[in-house]
């Protein structure tokens, strides 16, 4: 079964050169072992297990990433 990603969105970043990257990363939220809220920032990098999983499912059409706020 697949991991459940709550509140999945792209991350917008203002870069040092003054440009803005609307897909600088991906974020989602989860609970940790103490039931605390955890915000997870996923890099846009192959080899990261969450990035690989999210992109595979986006390509399959089973997952959608919201635009950055």
């Amino acid at each position, binding site marked *: 079964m697949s991991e*459940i990603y709550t509140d999945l969105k792209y991350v917008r970043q*203002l870069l040092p050169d003054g440009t803005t990257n609307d897909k600088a*990363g991906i974020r989602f939220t989860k609970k940790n*072992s103490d039931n605390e809220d*955890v915000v997870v920032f996923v890099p846009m990098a192959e080899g*990261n297990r969450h990035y690989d999983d999210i992109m595979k499912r986006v390509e399959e059409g089973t997952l959608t990433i919201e635009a950055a706020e």
Partner: protein
Amino acid sequence: MTTKIPAELVSEQVFGRRNLIINGAMRVAQRGTSATALTSGGLFLLDRFKGIESTNGAATVEQSTDTPAGFAKSLKLAVTTADTDMGGGQYSQIKYVVEAQDLQRLNYGTSDAETITLSFWVKSSKTGTYCISIVKHDSTAYFYVKEYTISSANTWEKKTITITPTAGSTTFITNSAGAIADDNGDGLQLGWFLSAGTTYNGATDDAWSSNSNHYATSNQVNWMDNTSNDFYLTGVQLEVGDNATPFEHLTFGEELTLCQRYYQKYGPYGTNVYPLGPSGYCYAGTAHALGHNPIVSLRANPDLEITGTLQIRGAQNDGGNDARDVASATVTLGNNSILWNVNAAAGATIGTTPIVGGGTNTTFFAYDSEL
């Protein structure tokens, strides 16, 4: 550390860091130790070992002090909601993934492929036949299953499973498609199956297969069928050779350092609000670039996990204890360095040199680079 190895095993075994498993004694638990509900996507509590429960029931994972002699900790699973009828695509398991470049000594993909031996201590209130699954993903994926039996309820038993590269009279592993890439990816997946529906339980015992649904045999018990069921695991060792040697104990520091390649945690201090590490410069009213040297080299570009309110501190020339909540962040792994690009609340002064700190005394962050 001293390990006694019987003379009859000496001639055939590898010595020095025999164990390919990290945290096999279940001592390192950076994320927590108390009972936590498993999820269908899987949950790491004890380092490197992932619990997965994808059924109509529910189960928890925790670190336990119930162990066989010579061990201090074990991984414990317990059923909290029973599922007496495993659906076709349902299953539950404990999963461990070995990094590919650490498996080159196995010579998979050649006619010299090595026999490997998995040993572990197990205890459960539910007796019967269980299955170990091994999956080799690189190149062409191949699947191996071996049954073992828990004979006595609530009794620690040591199990030894020897996996030959030609198990089931196959040549999958000794042909070139059996190779494991020399990289930082997924090498071998080990699964201690606790239940498996008909989609996944069609494997043949002690045989390699190319069928991607072969994770267990039809003899696999349904451990999820009663809320009194528990399952303990420790002393996990995977080594090259035909025999199981005694468990290779490392110091806690060694084991923790090995785990930190896959997960490392910074803070909390618990008593006050202090800097947590990364420092850098402000390049816009809301934007900051910071650098951080991780404790040990991470396997791959990690997730940044933030628990609590992380803040940028010292980014304003007001002479005070300026603190701005982190709104978003991206991390990029360099050579033993991590670049943070952080967006925080507006009003920072360009050219200041802020640091990352906790907004409360329970705030912490972690890098997650697990397989």
